[in-house]
């Protein structure tokens, strides 16, 4: 990669914590964010568990009422990252607004506001639909809400690629910086669709775990008794800038985005290609762009949603790219967070970057009986240490409809 791209700030609001540090601490010790749903609307659903945010967003009331929940979560996480990078809201910062962009991945955007306002229209008529209904529901609202709060004038982007959305947002941020279109990008993603409609939709596809009596044991990547994913919500964001820009202002650096690999399965609207061809293409491209050999990869944060077929295919793909003798420690953090859909890529990129920085791979919990012959080394049930020295990792995100984004992170340029 011609221009080095580094991470200088992090923020998150997730099922494990209301900010990035508490989320990371909870990940390391194997905390589950999955809970029983207590809403009345969960009554008739076959799946009555989900992973809601651990801490409710706390925005000023008038601002909050003009944002769908997804924007509230995205703004919360993005502003935490912004502050973490050393910037302030509403003041002069060491960044020219015309050189600052936002990229926010989301699977669907303001679904709850869309459904809610349609319900109001049906029950109470046209004149009761909120005047804000459109800006509430539009998928670019999270990016716009972030951008207007930090003065981002270089562009607002909303990549949509289902479960790969926020990995794609990070890849896009790196592209923007390398093309010289901006010096700083606030990038990440989020999703907030814990709603009876979404539960019904995914449920009708038989995609969700039904382990209602044991919520914290329900998300079980690679376990023989896995039965689907747990729906989560949340947002995670990074401040990403060129190495030159970061060093010039003395910013702390969490890690380097060494390469991105994008591909598509061209196979099915829902199922991953069981040959793993598309997944392997993405991972290989990430390594090629990073100019890193497969043997240097010491850690993989897998997509690993705990679907019966998906986990097997991904294990095969990882082996196919990294080799049967790979030393890479693999983990599936959806075992703890559930599946954040459009926010998953960013959530798991946070876990990957922190794993390299702290040299600790968070565990894949609930792995009581692993599938046989997976051929990969999984950090089962307890965190695993990573060795000293240079470290490189891959974070995989594979979306419904076939888009795949693999990001290669390293601990190069990390400041203490």
């Amino acid at each position: 990669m011609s221009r080095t791209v580094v991470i200088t700030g992090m923020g998150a609001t997730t099922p494990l914590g209301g900010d990035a540090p508490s989320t990371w601490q909870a990940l390391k010790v194997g905390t589950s964010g999955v809970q029983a749903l207590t809403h009345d609307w969960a009554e008739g659903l076959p799946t009555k568990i989900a992973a809601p945010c651990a801490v409710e967003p706390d925005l000023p009331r008038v601002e909050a009422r003009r944002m769908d929940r997804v924007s509230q979560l995205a703004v919360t996480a993005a502003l935490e990252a912004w502050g973490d990078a050393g910037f302030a809201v509403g003041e002069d910062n060491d960044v020219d607004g015309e050189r600052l962009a936002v990229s926010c991945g989301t699977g669907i955007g303001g679904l709850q506001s869309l459904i809610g306002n349609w319900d109001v229209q049906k029950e109470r008529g046209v004149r009761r639909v909120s005047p804000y209904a459109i800006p509430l529901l539009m998928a670019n609202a999270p990016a716009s809400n972030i951008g207007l709060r930090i003065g981002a004038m270089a562009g607002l982007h909303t990549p949509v690629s289902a479960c790969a959305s926020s990995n794609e947002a990070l890849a896009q941020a790196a592209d923007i910086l390398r093309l010289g279109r901006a010096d700083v990008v606030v990038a990440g993603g989020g999703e907030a669709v814990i709603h009876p409609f979404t539960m019904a939709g995914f449920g009708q596809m038989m995609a969700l775990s039904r382990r209602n009596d044991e919520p914290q044991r329900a998300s079980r990547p690679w376990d023989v008794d896995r039965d689907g994913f747990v729906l989560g919500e949340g947002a995670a964001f990074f401040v990403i800038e060129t190495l030159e820009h970061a060093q010039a202002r003395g910013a702390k650096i969490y890690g380097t985005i060494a390469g991105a690999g994008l591909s598509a399965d061209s196979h099915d609207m829902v199922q991953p290609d069981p040959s793993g061809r598309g997944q392997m293409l993405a991972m290989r491209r990430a390594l090629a762009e990073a100019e890193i050999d497969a043997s240097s990869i010491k850690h993989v944060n897998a997509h690993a949603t705990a679907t019966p077929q998906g986990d097997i295919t991904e294990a095969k793909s990882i082996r196919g790219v990294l080799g049967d003798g790979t030393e890479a420690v693999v983990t599936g953090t959806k075992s703890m967070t559930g599946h954040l859909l459009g926010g998953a890529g960013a959530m798991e990129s946070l876990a990957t970057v922190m794993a390299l920085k702290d040299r600790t791979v968070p565990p894949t919990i609930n792995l009581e009986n692993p599938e046989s012959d997976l051929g990969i080394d999984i950090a089962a049930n307890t965190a695993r240490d990573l060795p000293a020295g240079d470290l490189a990792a891959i974070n995989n995100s594979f979306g419904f409809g076939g888009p795949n984004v693999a990001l290669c992170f390293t601990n190069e340029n990390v400041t203490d």
Partner: protein
Amino acid sequence: MATTEEIRSSLAEIVNEVCNVPVEDVQMDKSFVDDLDADSLAMNEIIYAAEDKFGVEIPDEESKNLKTVGDAVAYIENHQG
């Protein structure tokens, strides 16, 4: 039938909810746009909430003439059922 002050007070609660303006600031002589920071979308929210609260209809051709709190209170008072 609500009194003038009761209408103003209920309207003040609506404006507070929509614009976060303190209720005591929502006085009869105040302009929604200039004094109370209500943009066009906020005005629509206020109008629709007032329709609900007071059981009156405020069609668009009328609502655009309601510039001050006093205008709105007078309209509501005159159209109460």
